């Protein structure tokens, strides 16, 4: 102590001439022990922060992101994994020919077909069926549905010879998948000729049968019909129009038939019988593609919307007319109870409108039509029943009077479900629909996968629950199954797989817990925790900075000493 006092005195003596009032005395240099303790204290605090606090914070605020096969998903979306192909198996039966003749016919016809085809993804494969099995084609056709290995039979062609025919002719059965070709016996294929006229005829017939389907599939695959040169613009337009109008594919559709009338009559209709007779056969045909539930209602006193233009009486036609452009306002959505049915699946609404006697008959002005389709929603039919003697509507609509309406409704239903308009055989059209639907579902599920992949990449803060990952893997496995089935010509199985893929893809994309991030913005968290982090953080950081500075200074000093 005394020594330090002495130092102070001597310092005072030195400073005295410059600043006599200030008595300054530097503290003694800190002991290395104290410096080391301070270093340890600060290091301990920061160790707690870095090794305990930070991991806890990280753990509790991190978002769970399940691993997604992003690359696979993107490849599906870009169409690199699967190129949909449509090999159609067509059975050729030649009961009136010898085997070599038949084989020659098959070869030449196949050759002619391949020459005609310009769309590689969709091709027809002929297969000769021997006559013994020809009789029970129907059974085989059914059996092939269950047998996973065999391809679906798209069509059976029976080549029959018929006398008194000048040229070959064809007959397509409307109820089955059978095409009969009749040829005059003198045109029977001769094994030597390389291009017999019968083969050319069969090939052309087949080509014509699948013409619209090919165009449709080309449209689905490419988004436009441009890559098929020989498609007429009318056909292309009608195909794209059908796509705009048709509903999305669903497992179950609800059909809702409603009788609307502005007055009190008719208040009943023979709807059960009408549905049974006019609609049930069609729906049974559809059973392999979609299921249907039906509900019906009668709605009286259904007035037009006040916004809608009212019908105009046309003297020349002696009828009340609706302008074509006003048809969109015909349905009074605010007041008519047309809410969708409960349960999964979309609702198709069919409206039978009976105008009031004072506005009967009611037709569309431009083309005198009495029905129209509301795209992706349903159809409307204007029924003008004969008025009774005191000019009122009949109070009951019989099954027969409903016939035109239900014929129109079944046509509208086919259109709304996206069925092609040709060929005339309904089973063939439904088969075509299966292929078109399978292709479009495959593409839509793939593109959903691509969107999901891009979404998760572009938004790093959204959580990805494990259910999404499992849905994605389900989707991908079903997609590849669908693609394989398609390659082998099993289109029903392909449709079933594509349907599951689509459902799973939608489920993963619309997962609710993936949008939860919005509700806790980082700003909010900072505002809540700043009162705590501010006062604690400042001394800690200042302490750390001082300590770092000191260490840097010591190091420099040491280097200087060493030098």
């Amino acid at each position: 102590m005394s020594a330090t006092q002495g130092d102070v005195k001597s310092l005072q003596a030195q400073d005295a001439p410059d600043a006599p009032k200030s008595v300054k005395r530097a503290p003694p240099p800190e002991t290395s022990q104290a410096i080391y303790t301070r270093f340890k204290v600060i290091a301990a605090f920061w160790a707690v922060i870095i090794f305990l606090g930070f991991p806890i914070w990280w753990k509790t605020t991190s978002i769970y992101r399940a691993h997604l096969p992003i690359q696979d998903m993107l490849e599906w979306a870009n169409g690199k994994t699967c190129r949909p192909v449509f090999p159609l198996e067509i059975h050729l039966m030649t009961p009136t020919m010898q085997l070599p003749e038949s084989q020659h016919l098959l070869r030449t016809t196949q050759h002619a077909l391949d020459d005609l085809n310009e769309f590689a993804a969709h091709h027809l494969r002929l297969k000769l069926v021997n006559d013994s099995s020809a009789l029970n084609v129907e059974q085989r056709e059914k059996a092939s549905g269950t047998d996973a290995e065999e391809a679906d039979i798209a069509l059976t062609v029976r080549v029959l010879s018929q006398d008194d025919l000048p040229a070959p002719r064809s007959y397509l059965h409307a109820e089955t998948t059978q095409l009969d070709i009749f040829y005059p016996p003198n045109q029977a294929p001769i094994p030597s000729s390389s291009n017999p006229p019968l083969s050319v005829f069969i090939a052309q017939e087949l080509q014509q049968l699948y013409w619209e389907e090919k165009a449709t599939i080309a449209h689905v695959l490419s988004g436009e019909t441009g890559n098929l040169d020989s498609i007429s613009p009318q056909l292309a337009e009608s195909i794209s129009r059908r796509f705009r109008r048709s509903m999305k594919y669903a497992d179950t559709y609800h059909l809702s038939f409603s009788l609307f009338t502005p007055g009190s009559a008719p208040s009943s209709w023979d709807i059960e019988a009408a549905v049974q007779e006019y609609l049930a056969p069609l729906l049974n045909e559809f059973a392999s593609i979609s299921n249907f539930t039906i509900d019906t209602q009668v709605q009286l006193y259904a007035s037009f919307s006040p916004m809608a233009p009212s019908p105009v009486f046309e003297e020349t036609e002696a009828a009340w007319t609706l302008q074509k452009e006003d048809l969109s306002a015909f349905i009074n959505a605010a007041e008519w109870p047309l809410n969708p049915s409960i349960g999964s699946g979309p609702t198709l609404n069919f409206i039978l409108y009976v105008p009031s006697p004072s506005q009967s008959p009611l037709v569309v002005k431009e083309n005198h039509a009495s029905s129209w389709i509301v795209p992706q929603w349903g159809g409307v039919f204007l029924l003008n029943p004969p008025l009774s003697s005191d000019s009122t509507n009949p109070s009951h609509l019989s099954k027969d009077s409903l016939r035109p309406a239900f014929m129109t409704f079944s046509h509208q239903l086919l259109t709304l479900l996206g069925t092609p308009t040709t060929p005339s055989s309904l089973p063939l059209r439904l088969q075509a629909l299966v292929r078109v639907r399978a292709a479009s579902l495959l593409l839509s599920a793939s593109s959903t996968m691509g969107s999901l992949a891009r979404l998760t990449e572009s938004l790093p803060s959204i959580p990805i629950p494990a259910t999404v990952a499992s849905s994605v893997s389900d989707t991908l496995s079903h997609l590849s199954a669908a693609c394989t089935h398609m390659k082998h010509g099993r289109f029903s199985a392909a449709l079933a797989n594509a349907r599951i893929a689509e459902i799973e893809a939608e489920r993963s994309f619309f997962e609710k817990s993936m949008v939860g991030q919005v509700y806790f913005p980082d700003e909010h968290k900072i505002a809540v925790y700043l009162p705590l982090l501010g006062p604690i953080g400042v001394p800690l950081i200042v302490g750390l900075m001082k300590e770092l500075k000191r260490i840097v200074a010591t190091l420099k000093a040491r280097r200087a000493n060493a030098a």
Partner: protein
Amino acid sequence: MSDVPFILALQPRTSHGLGAQTKLRHEVMTVLSLFSLLWACIVFLWSAPAFASSDYHEQLFLQPFPQSSLLASFNFRSNTSQASFDNQHFRYFPRALGQILQHANTKELHLRFTTGRWDADSWGPRPWNGSKEGGTGVELWAWIDAPNDDEAFAKWITLTQSLSGLFCASLNFVDSTKTTRPVVSFEPTGDHPESSNLHLLHGALPGEVVCTENLTPFLKLLPCKGKTGISTLFDGHKLFDAAWQSMSVDVRPICTRQGDCTIQIEQTVDMVLDIERSKRPRSNPIPRPVPNEQLVCDTSKPYNSEDTCYPLEKVTEKDWSLSEVFGRPLNGICPLADSDGSAEYPVCIRVPHERGIFYTEGTKEFKLDDGFTRCFDLDPSKPFDLAIPEQPINIQAPLDEPILHAERTIVGHGQERGGMRIIFENPSPTAAVDFIYFESLPWFLRPYIHTLQATITGRDGLRREIPASDLVSETIFRPAIDRERGTQLELALSVPAASTVTLTYDFEKAILRYTEYPPDANRGFNVAPAVIRILNGVDSSPIYIRSTSLLLPLPTPDFSMPYNVIILTSTVIALGFGTIFNILVRRVVLVEEAEALGSQTIKGRILGKVLALRGKFGRKETKVE
């Protein structure tokens, strides 16, 4: 309509199917005590062939009450066969509701929208014996077919969600805490097969405000949609301006003994309008004082003078007409209701026969021989109006005395505890009343059932305390689970003749979590009305009374509290931390030494520079001088 039904009506109980007749007696008894004198008409209605070809009926019943009130009771009923209901072929039955019921496996549905309070002292017993009204707000109960309780509850949630969309009501807020399963308070009114496994679920939303948005979907369910028939009188402005109104939707299956079933939907709207108030034109709705010269004063009062008046009660009844009270005339009849000519009269009014009534030409009037009821058969093509001129009151249509008066209030003070007091008054001098008292309490109201006490005031007017078990013959109690379900209490009680019973019990108020408070927490929490089911006799169907809903004030926190807590704790922690950290890290030196060190710190350096600058400027100034 010819006179034939009228003649038939005078000799009811013609020979009809046995099954239909037992059913019929049941129904007749329901209605008897209120519209007791209308019975002939109603018996006729129910004894009509069980499944007539016309399956839609509607009727408006009007009854003026004393003090210028008017009860208007609308009833719409339609049937559909079970087969077409199952196949979803809907004609008069609304498709939207039918699909909801099928989707939720609901076999019987009762939905009520009620506002206001029924003034039993002035208006007597309730219409339909209270079976068509609900507690204030929305009340829903349904029998759901499900194999077990959990599935029944899942279906119930589906049902409430769908109905909430259909009726634009907050029924989706009926969750497990607001759902009860009453045991003895309700019984199915429809005929259900023995094999079905029915579950009764009941939910109430006492805070729901019933308004026009509920009326519009209600009207859409009717076949005539408010365009013709008695439903044209519905005007949201008048209906929801009523002193009391109740809308109901009931769906139930009705089966014959042979097993033919129909699904019946019955919709009713009952309202009590204040005639004076309803007659005010919409363009000028503000009430004006009666001009001086029209005041009838009690001249016998000593203070009666030019400027002081004790107004006398009117001796004449106010004049009114349908178009004045409802704002529009009745627009014809709904043609569906009358397709076979055997339907009931579309409009009936209960006033003494000698009172004059004017009505539109072309209307046929039928006076029922009870002396008070008359019905009208309308001309379908013309709007119908009915007017009662102002005339002196000689005879009033008699009002029955209600069988039981009930009142429920919350007593006590403070934020922690409270009590419930329920008063039952039996006005009958001879007969005791047996009833079931059903209460569903929210979970945050925790009753202490052991504190249940009863006092009875008999004929002598003396209050006596008696053990509650003397009155309560059966108790069904299901305690609450916090945040999962509410308390359910059903008491089978008996009140002796001419006495008043007061039941009290204590309860504790729970403290809610911060997020469980609604935005208007200080308003209080709604407690659903109690339901009282009076069982008088085995044969007749029950009479229902509902108490008013209650408002329970709960302790409410200051809602800025979490932020205050965060900031306060942060400050305390930061203070403590800062102190400890500084003690550990700072170097302790003497004061003089600190001054010496000062020149090395940032503060010291800045101070030094400032001093230097000041010195420079100071020198410059001196130079200029």
